[in-house]
């Protein structure tokens, strides 16, 4: 297991960097926000990313992917994080393709994965029911009816919900609200009867939706993984996504930091560059150190995903906790160290601050993951 990127990864990183800079800088997110784009992302750009192989990177070759492993996605996500690129990478690739790949039947895999890799299918995971990440707090129910199930309930903060062709719905098939047992996952079509999806407008201008399920009938073949044992599949899926998101956060944090350092070398007050003020220098040095730790954590977690895997749960929490803290810090300093201009909408830093808070909360904030880490370590 290596803590440095290999040659393939370095090449991929460079091409992802060039691609994002040329085609999807922050101004693209701004354009989407200001034009009130109904999709909230650029389908054309997504097709280009698909052509670069990003959608199929982690999908096995037999299902139309490239089987590059997670180390490929690592460097891509870092670059999309740098540029705040809105794309289906998190919802469709990190969450749903992972769930299908880890828990789906042969039929699910061959029906869904090749279409994801080809950019023909967008998916979303309908998990959360409250304003906090609580993956076992599931009230949404799926009751057996004839050969299949009937789903009832509501979901919130469903990433890409309104653009997804299919949802993976986390529902309760038995047990009480916070039980680990009794959770099951279902693949549901967006135009299923009784399903309504409404887009919510989040502070980061990225996609999320509220989903209502009212007597939604699905066949037995909609069940993804084992009945009542969905918790385990869900946790494994979430851990992959948490690590992926940590890579995105690393990219965002690095970008804000780079912009801060540039500004410190360019803005003058009191007749000197503001970067000469020790009050700012030490904070910059502290951020640098924290970023170095973040880079190591992300690298280590991805190495585990592509390697031994046994330490994935704890490393996912290490990564998500650490990156949430540090991105929180750096996104705040990003505004502060730019002074008044940092507060203006015209300036990009605000986009990073807004995205930071959403992605910090996504799939568990720092406190959630410290708690989980402590439990995993037996204290």
């Amino acid at each position: 297991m290596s803590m440095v990127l290999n040659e393939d990864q370095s090449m991929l990183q460079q091409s992802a960097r060039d691609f994002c800079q040329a085609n999807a800088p922050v101004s693209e997110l701004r354009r989407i926000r200001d034009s009130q784009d109904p999709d909230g992302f650029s389908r054309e750009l997504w097709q280009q990313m698909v052509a670069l192989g990003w959608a199929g990177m982690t999908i096995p070759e037999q299902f139309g992917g490239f089987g590059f492993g997670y180390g490929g996605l690592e460097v891509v996500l870092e670059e999309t994080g740098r540029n705040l690129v809105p794309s289906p990478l998190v919802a469709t690739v990190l969450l749903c393709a992972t769930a299908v790949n880890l828990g789906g039947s042969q039929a699910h895999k061959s029906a869904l994965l090749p279409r994801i890799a080809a950019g023909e299918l967008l998916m979303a995971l309908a998990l959360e029911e409250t304003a906090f990440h609580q993956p076992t707090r599931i009230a949404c129910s799926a009751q057996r009816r004839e050969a299949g199930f009937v789903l009832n309930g509501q979901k919130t903060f469903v990433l890409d919900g309104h653009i997804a062709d299919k949802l993976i719905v986390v529902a309760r098939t038995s047990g009480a609200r916070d039980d680990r047992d009794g959770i099951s996952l279902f693949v549901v079509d967006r135009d299923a009867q009784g399903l309504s999806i409404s887009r919510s407008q989040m502070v980061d201008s990225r996609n999320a939706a509220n989903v209502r399920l009212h007597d939604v009938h699905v066949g037995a073949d909609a069940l993804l993984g084992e009945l009542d044992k969905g918790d385990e599949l869900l946790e494994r899926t979430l851990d992959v996504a948490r690590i992926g998101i940590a890579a995105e956060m690393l990219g965002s944090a690095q970008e804000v930091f780079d912009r801060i350092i540039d500004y410190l070398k360019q803005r003058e007050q009191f007749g000197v560059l503001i970067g000469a003020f020790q009050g700012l220098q030490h904070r910059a040095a502290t951020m640098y150190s924290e970023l170095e730790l973040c880079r190591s954590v992300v690298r280590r977690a991805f190495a585990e995903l592509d390697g031994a895997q046994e330490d994935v749960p704890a490393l996912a929490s290490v990564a998500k906790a650490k990156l949430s803290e540090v991105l929180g810090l750096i996104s705040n300093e990003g505004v502060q160290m730019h002074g008044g201009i940092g507060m203006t909408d015209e300036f990009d830093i605000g986009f990073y601050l807004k995205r930071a808070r959403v992605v910090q909360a996504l799939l568990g904030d720092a406190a959630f993951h410290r708690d989980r880490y402590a439990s995993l370590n037996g204290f």
Partner: protein
Amino acid sequence: MQSIEEFRASTRAWLEENCPPSMRTAMQEDEVVWGGRNSSFKNPDSKLWLERMAGKGWTTPTWPQEYGGGGLNKEENLVLLQELQRIGARQALNSFGISMLGPVLLEYGTHEQKAEHIPKILRGEIRWCQGYSEPGSGSDLASLSTKAVLDGDHYVLNGAKVWTSYADKADWIFCLVRTDFEAAKHSGISFILFDMQTQGVSTRPIRLISGSSPFCETFFDDVRVPARNLVGTLNDGWTIAKRLLQHERTMISGFGLSDKASGRSLDASSVEGQAMQARGDTGRLSDPVLRDDIARYKIDAEAFAFTSQRSMEEAKLNKGPNATSSMLKNYGCELNKRRYELLLQALGTQGLGWASVQHEDFSVEQLRVTREWLRSKGNSIEGGTAEIQLNVIAKRVLGLPDMPMLTTKKGS
């Protein structure tokens, strides 16, 4: 040429045969071997272990064989470390000669200087101390004023050093002295070595807040040092001084690795283990705030351990950031300080004893934690303070500008 797997096998066999059983137990503080003329070995196995390891050159595995080192390449060194770790072997010799002076002597010393000093360092025959700081020159080390004036084939030294760790126990000193009094402050310094028994050298121990007296004031009164003991170029000692500081910082950053950070099982000696034991908790630590703080600490400790590993790998590929040593030093020290603060919280008032009057007041372990907590405060002062490390990162790594009035004044 031996393959790496053959090397592993023969190393393992040698260690099996030569590492005494008592050297495979956790190090006791009073059994750490520092070497030197006046060495005494509380445990006779320590002496045996040192002689055997030194005989192989393995107290300094990567140093050249020509001077008695192990001559191992990086890969072999890694294997040796792994094999030592596998059996839980103690470090045979711990010294400033190994961690600080040796590396710069190998880089800047003459053949004669290396041949004279390196073998004695790695066999633990001579113990070294570091004469850098002075009463008026701490962080601003380059302003130092201990004078060395040439008189025939000797330099005559006058001045005082302070905070000289183990000066009262050391045999020799590596010392920064001013040899040009007109030049800008960084350009008139030289790096020189001498015997602490030379006439005119005296030391006075200073007591620390932790109660022990590991460092001294050191005075030089017309001390005559042979001119050939000057290392590197006259007046260019600052280059060597800085290089040595990098080695020192790397060593100190190891403090941050003191917790077995990535151990996933609950260990009684860990912070969380002690906290739970002290409270009689099982399964889950009952104090939620402490639990959260410990989790935060352990996450950072893991992240730090990964970073040390990455920095080593990058150094091998020669693409490490050049001042990683400052970052690691600073972060590692802060982590170690946090660890001791958490240990105090873990132990409650049992972590606040000074001595055991009645036998069972405080356990030896608990008293040790208290003293080490106090000692840990020095981590962010020794080897360059936390603030100085942050300055180095800001300027050398991030390229931030100097404050104009702080540029070097001539002769100061």
